[in-house]
């Protein structure tokens, strides 16, 4: 009897969250899938069931492959770099050195800025000839470059900007991780005459592996969600050199009004993210067992 009451109470407590989650996560996922199976409605051509046609066009769409590859490059470029810098930052800030508070603020502040503001600031840095970077290069006698207008430099430019924004964020996770490492380990290694680099590579880094994996997966997921800067910097150009999946979905849905294709693209993105999440569960679970 009491069990039943507990049951109902439990569900009632969970209900509000359940309703909202269903409405904005699970239901749209299902509807998106169905939308991808039909063509769009228009008064000139009627709507019809198209099955996997949208997916066929997707896989034969050169722009789709371009944005997919771009997302991969972006992930490859931003994640290891920002993690590396984040670890260095965490190591720095973890010590009792003078001005530590200032350093921590300097490293973390970019994270507090919205990406759109970050893009505005860096837009000026990257402006050809009149921008900050080209002017500085000019002083040293180097040629300026059309950073955002050149297909070969646009992604690296965006990567630099993204690393600038994200490294401080990951630094914090590493700080948390570092603080769980007992200081005795450091003393012990010093006593043994082991170098700092050794201590880091042999002891700290392995102990930080769970943090690293967590950050890795998070960063990977984030790299798909963050497209704000494209609105201000390049709109995906030149010739889709900086276009990303989510931005392409936005364009397809809201600019081309092609709901069917946008849905197919979304399903692809969801599958990609789901596979990543599964990977996270596998690896992270294994690691925590080791601990």
């Amino acid at each position, binding site marked *: 009897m009491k069990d039943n009451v507990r049951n109902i109470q*439990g569900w009632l407590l969970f209900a*509000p969250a359940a309703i909202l989650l269903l409405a904005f996560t699970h239901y749209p996922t299902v509807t998106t899938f169905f939308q991808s199976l039909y063509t769009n409605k228009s008064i000139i051509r009627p709507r019809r069931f198209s099955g996997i046609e949208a997916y066929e066009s997707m896989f034969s769409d050169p722009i789709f492959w371009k944005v997919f590859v771009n997302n991969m490059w972006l992930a490859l470029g931003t994640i290891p770099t920002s993690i590396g810098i984040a670890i260095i930052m965490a190591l720095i800030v973890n010590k009792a050195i003078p001005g530590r508070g200032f350093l921590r603020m300097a490293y973390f502040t970019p994270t507090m800025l919205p990406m759109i503001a970050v893009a505005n600031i860096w837009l000026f840095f990257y402006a050809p000839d009149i921008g900050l970077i080209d002017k500085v290069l000019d002083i040293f006698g180097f040629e300026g470059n059309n950073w955002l207008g050149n297909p070969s430099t646009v992604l690296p430019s965006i990567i630099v900007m993204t690393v600038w924004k994200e490294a401080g964020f990951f630094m914090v996770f590493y700080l948390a991780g570092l603080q769980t490492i007992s200081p005795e380990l450091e003393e012990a290694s010093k006593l043994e005459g082991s170098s700092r680099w050794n201590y880091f590579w042999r002891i700290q880094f392995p102990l930080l592996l769970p943090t690293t994996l967590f950050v890795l997966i998070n960063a990977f997921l984030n790299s798909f969600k963050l497209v704000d800067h494209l609105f*201000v910097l390049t709109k995906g150009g030149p010739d889709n050199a900086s276009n990303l999946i989510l931005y392409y979905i936005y364009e397809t849905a809201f600019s081309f009004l092609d709901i069917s294709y946008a849905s197919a693209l979304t399903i692809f993105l969801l599958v990609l993210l789901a596979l990543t999440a599964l990977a996270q569960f596998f690896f992270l679970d294994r690691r925590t067992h080791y601990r």
Partner: protein
Amino acid sequence: MTYRNRIQTSVELIGAYILAGFWILPLLYAFWAAFHSSSDAMHFDIFSPLTLDNFREAWSQAPFARFSLNTFLLVSFILPGQLLISTLAAYAFVRFKFTGANVAFALVLVQLMITPEILIVQNYVTLSKLSLVDTISGMGLPYIASAFCIFLLRQAFKSIPKELEDAAELEGCGTMSILWKVYVPLATPTYIAFSLVSVSHHWNNFLWPLIISNSVETRPLTVGLGIFAAPESGVEWSILSAATLMSVAPLLIAFLIFQKQFVQSFMQAGIK
């Protein structure tokens, strides 16, 4: 410390400061440019006269005051909603073994990965069916159920010893008062931590608010700044810097004052 060690430490210290310098430079430049005229800013005339003109221009070209209000309203709508709904849900998961709880929790965790922005097209359709497009509540609604918050609170509640609940029950507290009197107060650090993370995130959110807000009355700061910076009109750098500063100021100032708390919050969230 040996001589060699001393050099190493100094070199590291200098390195740390150089890194910090690079890191703070962009924001510092935007700050400096906002107070100088556009041509001075572009020619790096360091000692050129300060001016507030850029702020006046930016202020007159777009209603930043209204945008700030909108962002503030948005965040004030989202955060309490998140805290309330997640508290109830976490409580359910921790203390009520209701049938299907495990499946339900797994489904909750799905949202950690599939955030509302990804399902942007369908969520837009849902909101338009509810006639909530171009409303602040519409902008916030998809985020009110936060898997992350539920997850954090579940961890926090789990760590509260059952004896406390038993004791409260003995004193004649009902289910809900146990929640408010025992669990919530003890999970305060988690609430604070999550609040700071959530406020930062939603203050800076762009894509979803871009789609949902049409008019000035709903447009938040980020979208206002994005439209303001529309590449076509070729807004000048100094005015753009001023506008950018005005947009980031509230959150940034709050951060600079409560630095420690912010960092701690993000750390806490990370550990979990």
